[in-house]
C-alpha cells in the first residue's frame, strides 16, 4: 500500500546529505573538543565551523549560538536560565495560551517555584496581539516568551512587534521558533529577539540536537552544570556529529527555501480548499499568517483518534488534537484557547506537508478523507444527516 507521511510538524526524516556530513564526524572527529592535542583541536574546529555557519544563517554572531540536546532543552534553558538569573529584578513572566508544552510546562514549573505568570489569550485565528502583551506587562516583568509559528494550527505570531515592546521596557524576549527555523527566513537581529529556540529534526536534521540563540549581553544560569562547554552555559562533551548534522540541514533548508516554500504553500492551500468542501468543516488558524506546510481542520460530529486510525489504514500519517491523541482528558489547549468547544476540538485533523510531498499526495488525501468522515459521521449519535 502507498504510504503518505503528512506529519512533518512532528518530525522529519534525516536527509541523505545530512547523514553523509555526519558520518565522517562519527568516524574521524571523535576527540574531546576540550583536549589540547590534535584530536581535540580537530573536534574544536568542527564545532567552531558549524557554529559560524549556523550563526551566519540566523543573522547572529558566533558566540551567540548555544547547541543543546533538543528544542525543548533550548526552551527550558532560555526560560529557566533567564528567570533564575533575573529574579532579583522581578518574578513575572508573560507567555501565551498556545505555546508548546516545552514552554508552557516550564513556565508552570517556575510558577510552582515562586514566579508569577500571565498567559496572554489569542483571537479566533490563534493570533497573539502585541497590545495584549503590552497590557500584561508589569513593573516586575522580567521575561516575555511567545512562539513564532504555532505547531498545531500554524498561525505565525507578530514577534517583531512584541520584540519592540519588550526592548523599549528592558524586558527579555524569547521566541520558540522550532516550527519556523528551516521553513521561514529567520534573522534574529531583524526580528529583534533576545533568545530563539530551534530543533534540527524539524528541518531534516537529526533528533537529539537543538540550539538557542542568546543575544550578546543576555546572561543565563545554566540548566546543566559540570563543564565550561558552550561558554559555561551548557556543560557536557559536545555531540559533534549532531551539531554538524544540524548545521548541514540548516544550510540546505536555507539555500532551497525559495524553491520549496511556494510549492508547499500551493499544496497547503489546495488541501485546505479541498477539505473545506466537506460540510460542517472548520479551518483552524490564520489563512495567510500561516506556516507554509500546515493544514488544520475540524470535522464536526467525529472524534480525531478514530479519524487517524482510518487514515492510517489508507496509509496516511497525520495527527489530531483530540483528547485521546493529546495524552490528556482534554483536547488540544491550542484549539480550546482559540474558542473552539470541546466537542469540535475533538474532531481536529492536522496535516503537515514536507519536502517529499507531491500534488499526487494531495489528490490521494482529498479522495480518501471525505468517505472516512462520512463513515464516522454515519456512526455518530451527534450527527443528523
Amino acid at each position, binding site marked *: 500500500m502507498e504510504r503518505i507521511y503528512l506529519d512533518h510538524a512532528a518530525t522529519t526524516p534525516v536527509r541523505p546529505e545530512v547523514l553523509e556530513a555526519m558520518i565522517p564526524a562519527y568516524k574521524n572527529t571523535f576527540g574531546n573538543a576540550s583536549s589540547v592535542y590534535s584530536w581535540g583541536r580537530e573536534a574544536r574546529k568542527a564545532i567552531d565551523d558549524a557554529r559560524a555557519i549556523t550563526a551566519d544563517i540566523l543573522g547572529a554572531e558566533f558566540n551567540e549560538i548555544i547547541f543543546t540536546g533538543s528544542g525543548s532543552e533550548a526552551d527550558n534553558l532560555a526560560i529557566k536560565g533567564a528567570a533564575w538569573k533575573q529574579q532579583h529584578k522581578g518574578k513575572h513572566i508573560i507567555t501565551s495560551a498556545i505555546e508548546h508544552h516545552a514552554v508552557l510546562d516550564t513556565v508552570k514549573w517556575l510558577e510552582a517555584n515562586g514566579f508569577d505568570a500571565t498567559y496572554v489569550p489569542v483571537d479566533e485565528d490563534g493570533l497573539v496581539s502585541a497590545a495584549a502583551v503590552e497590557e500584561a506587562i508589569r513593573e516586575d516583568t522580567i521575561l516575555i516568551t511567545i512562539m513564532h509559528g504555532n505547531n498545531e494550527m500554524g498561525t505565525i505570531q507578530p514577534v517583531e512587534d512584541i520584540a519592540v515592546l519588550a526592548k523599549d521596557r528592558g524586558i527579555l524576549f524569547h521566541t520558540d521558533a522550532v516550527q519556523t527555523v528551516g521553513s521561514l527566513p529567520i534573522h534574529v537581529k531583524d526580528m529583534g529577539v533576545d533568545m530563539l529556540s530551534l530543533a534540527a529534526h524539524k528541518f531534516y536534521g537529526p533528533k537529539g540536537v537543538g540550539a538557542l540563540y542568546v543575544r550578546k549581553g543576555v546572561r543565563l544560569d545554566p540548566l546543566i552544570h559540570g563543564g565550561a562547554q558552550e561558554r559555561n552555559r551548557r556543560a557536557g562533551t559536545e555531540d559533534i556529529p549532531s551539531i554538524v548534522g544540524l548545521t548541514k540541514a540548516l544550510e540546505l533548508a536555507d539555500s532551497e527555501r525559495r524553491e520549496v516554500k511556494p510549492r508547499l504553500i500551493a499544496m497547503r492551500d489546495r488541501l485546505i480548499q479541498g477539505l473545506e468542501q466537506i460540510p460542517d468543516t472548520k479551518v483552524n488558524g490564520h489563512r495567510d499568517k500561516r506556516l507554509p506546510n500546515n493544514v488544520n481542520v475540524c470535522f464536526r*460530529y*467525529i472524534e480525531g483518534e478514530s479519524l487517524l486510525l482510518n487514515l492510517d489504514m489508507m496509509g496516511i500519517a497525520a495527527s489530531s488534537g483530540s*483528547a*485521546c491523541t493529546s495524552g490528556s482528558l482534554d483536547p488540544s489547549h491550542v484549539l480550546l484557547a482559540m474558542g473552539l468547544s470541546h466537542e469540535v476540538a475533538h474532531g481536529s485533523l492536522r496535516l503537515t506537508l514536507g519536502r517529499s510531498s507531491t500534488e499526487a499526495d494531495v489528490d490521494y488525501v482529498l479522495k480518501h478523507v471525505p468517505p472516512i468522515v462520512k463513515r464516522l459521521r454515519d*456512526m*455518530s449519535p451527534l450527527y443528523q444527516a
Partner: protein
Amino acid sequence: MYTDKVMDHFQNPRNVGEIANADGVGEEGNVRCGDIMKLWIKVEDGRIMDAKFKTFGCGAAIATSSMITEMVIGKTLEEAQEISNQAVAEALDGLPPVKMHCSNLAADALQKALDDYKAKQSA
C-alpha cells in the same frame, strides 16, 4: 497499541445503527471527554433479540460499542445485567490502560438501556 480484536471491531463494527420503536435506549459519556455511546435494544420474552449502537469516540469507544452488541444479543435481561465494562474489555483481548477509564462505556450504556426498558414496562 490496540489488539487485533479491537482493530477488527473498529474496522468492521457490528450492529451500527438505530432501532425504530426500541424497547430500551441508553446513552453514556459526554462530548467534553470525546466519547458518547447510544445503544438501542429490542426485547422479547425477557430476552434481548436485537441491539444497535451509534458512537462518537475513539477506536476503543467504537470497538467496545460494537463488542457489547455482539455479547448482548440473545442474552436474558438478567444475564445482560451482569456484563461489566471489564468483561467487554476482556472480550476484546484487553484495552490500553489509558482507555479503560474514559472510553470503556459500553456496559454503562447497556445498563441505562435496561433501566429504560424496565421504566417503560412499569409505566
